[in-house]
């Protein structure tokens, strides 16, 4: 029984391990040496200071998006539209970066605020479509994602196209003062880490310590009972979406203001979808989210250099994370295996309070 509780605690690691084993099998099958591959990936992720900083820098927007998704998942919402919310955040920040004149701190403050607003509004639309129009948030979200991407492409190839006709793939680089200042020539901006940490604490507190978090939880588990207990499902649904959108918008801003230095096609790079996977793998536990986001980032960044050192394609990183998620889905929640945090397991833990039965 002790073993059971222990497994439950480290549950998110189980699919990771399973996926690692599976990938090793795959490598052996293709005649590659797993040790060499993992060494190469390690080198790719943490080989130099710059690489390590890249891993951290990539983690931050992923973490921000995942934190937002914790809120919507808790409320039982599948916010697939997060991808579009990231994009709209990036667009809003880019607009300020390209066209506003002010000192650096003011620029950055306005960029961050507008990015959050844009993400929140984009998410709010999906929320209202759901509560008022009866459009499921998955479909509404997918449609809004396409719109956001089309909108970016239009900006890049139209009004925001670099003057010399230049590249079709992005706007001109932003002025230095409108970007986040980075650490030692890397892509990592310390300010973004600070923001992410604040967001982490806020989401943690919101879910654990506020009535709002509790309402989301009730709504996610049983909307009918939640309604009868006084929870307004429309209000909380839209609020959860908007908070998630704000964090996603922030992630978009971090992408354009420090990971890149301009607005590009495919600015999100799939971070929104990746964040969905992070949260699923973390089994919705707030404190696991940063660890898993970091891990995903290391794997994906490590895989980029893989191709240079071995003959393997860099998509191995994607395969690895993809397989992990498949394992998560395969195992379902820990409950499906019968070792979940079911009431029985909790009750098995030593308990001192004596009650009359």
């Amino acid at each position, binding site marked *: 029984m002790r073993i059971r509780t222990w497994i439950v605690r480290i549950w998110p690691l189980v699919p990771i391990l399973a996926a690692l084993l599976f990938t090793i099998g795959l490598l052996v099958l293709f005649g590659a040496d797993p040790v060499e591959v993992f060494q190469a990936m390690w080198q790719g992720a943490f080989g130099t200071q710059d690489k390590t900083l890249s891993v951290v820098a990539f983690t931050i927007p992923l973490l921000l998006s995942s934190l937002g998704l914790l809120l919507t998942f808790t409320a039982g919402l599948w916010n697939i539209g997060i991808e579009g919310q990231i994009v709209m955040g990036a667009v809003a920040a880019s607009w300020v970066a390209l066209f506003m004149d002010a000192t650096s701190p003011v620029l950055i403050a306005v960029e961050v605020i507008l990015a959050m607003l844009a993400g929140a509004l984009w998410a709010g639309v999906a929320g209202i479509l759901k509560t008022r129009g009866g459009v499921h948030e998955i479909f509404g979200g997918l449609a809004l994602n396409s719109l956001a991407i089309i909108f970016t492409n239009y900006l890049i190839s139209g009004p925001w196209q670099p003057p010399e006709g230049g590249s079709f793939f992005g706007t001109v680089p932003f002025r230095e003062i409108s970007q986040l200042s980075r650490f030692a020539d890397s892509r990592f901006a310390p300010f973004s880490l600070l923001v992410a940490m604040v967001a982490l604490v806020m989401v943690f507190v919101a879910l654990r*310590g506020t009535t709002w978090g509790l309402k989301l*939880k009730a709504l996610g588990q049983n909307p009918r009972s939640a309604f009868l207990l006084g929870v307004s499902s429309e209000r909380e649904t839209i609020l959860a979406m908007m908070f998630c959108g704000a964090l996603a918008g922030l992630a978009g801003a971090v992408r354009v203001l420090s990971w890149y230095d301009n607005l590009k096609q495919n600015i999100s790079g799939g971070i929104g979808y990746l964040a969905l996977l992070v949260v699923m793998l973390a089994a919705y536990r707030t404190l696991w989210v940063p660890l898993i986001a970091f891990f995903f980032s290391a794997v994906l960044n490590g895989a980029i250099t893989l191709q240079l050192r071995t003959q393997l394609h860099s998509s191995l990183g994607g395969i690895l994370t993809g397989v992990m998620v498949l394992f998560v889905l395969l195992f379902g929640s820990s409950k499906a295996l019968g070792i979940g945090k079911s009431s029985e397991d909790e009750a*098995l833990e030593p308990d001192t309070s004596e009650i009359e039965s």
Partner: protein
Amino acid sequence: MRVEIRDIRKYFGSVKANDGITLTLEEGHIYGVLGENGAGKSTLMKILSGYQPPDSGEILLNGQPHTFDSPLSALKNGVGMLYQDPHDIPPFSIVDNFLLGRDKRLRLNYRAAESELKELSSKYGFALDIQAHVDSLSLGERQQLELVRLLAGGAEVLILDEPTTGISAEQKDVLFNSMRKLAREEGKILLLVSHKLEEVQELCDHAFILRRGKYVGEMEIPCPNEKLVEMMFGQVPPRSERPTFELGDPMLELRDVNISTYRLSVKNLNLSVRAGEIFGLAGLEGSGQRLLIQACAGLVRPESGQIILDGQDITSWSYHKTRAVNVAYVAAGRLEEGLVASLSLTEHVVLAQRETDFFVDWAASGQDAQSRIEHYQIVGRPDSTAEELSGGNQQRLLFGLLWNKLKLILLEHPTRGLDVRSTNYIWNLLYQRRQDGTAIIFISPDLDEIIERSDRIAVFSGGVMSRIVDAKTTSVKEIGHMIGGQL
């Protein structure tokens, strides 16, 4: 088949839900399983049916020890159970539901399943519309479907955990007749868990009594009710007297209210309920009494007419708005409509508060939960989740979440699943609320309860509300006639 249950133990933390229970069941008998709320009846039945494993102890079928790791493996060995809460999956048709988990081949054999389903249901007198979807079925029909599924799966031992809460009197008769047939003619073993002693007397030939997780004795049935009650509670609980109460001014008035849904329309409701009055609504399920309650709660919108609460017109107000002016509604389904299975008692207390703060003070809320646990005699801890509570304790929790100083309480099946003592206890708490001028309207399938607890009674039949009768002068017989349509 002969079933022996030997020294079964199941502890949940410090709660000894089953504490060494030994019983023997013989072919062709209908056994009653009795005990107060939280005595461990459902726990034992779920162990016997493979839903959960015991901590220790054995189950012997025809002398052979068996361990079941799932309800399916129990059913393969001939043990099937009808759960206290219906467990089927709503959006399928009946045939799909029936086939579910049975047909091992890739192609489902619909034709055979349909004829088997028809044959079995007609044999036991069930009238199931095969093409219907499960979510359009009433609770009673779902039960019949589940029974047929278990029988087709080869059940020799059938466990029914409080099957008569929430089904109509006709459905109950059909169910009981089929149970008699299964035992007397087919030699199956039936176990009936129930709090209604009349049912046990009517149907069973033997009863086991559990108390606080232990076996305390058994009786041949029929026997005096007092004997059973004494074994269940350790003493005979005093019969509560209904205190007389001076009624106040009209609290709720319905004027020419018309409600219509796609299933049923209710016309011309006129009713006035006074402060401190208890008003009972009788009638078959789906006759319109629920619509009346839900219209007062703001859950369905009347087509026309007026609903006046304490002088204020609340017609067409939303549920949350009527709730804010101190109208409370307690639905029939506990874990479906009212409680959130995975939330703790404390979390429920926080959610249900009249005014919520932004930050939750968990320590204070935990104490609040603890005091409600004591006041409503809930067997559980502030951090127990709703699903960990026994059925009767979930019902008490629902009452524990009601606000103070309410104007109107609307109740569906208020004492569903409560044992005799808890029923009295809950009603006493409701009587006390009359001091605040609270008016109470309730629905119950139990005519004795309606006559005993109400001041006045109305009966619904096919969407029509009867004349209003005085509870003191009416009888079960009169109400029965009215339910039959002789309004």
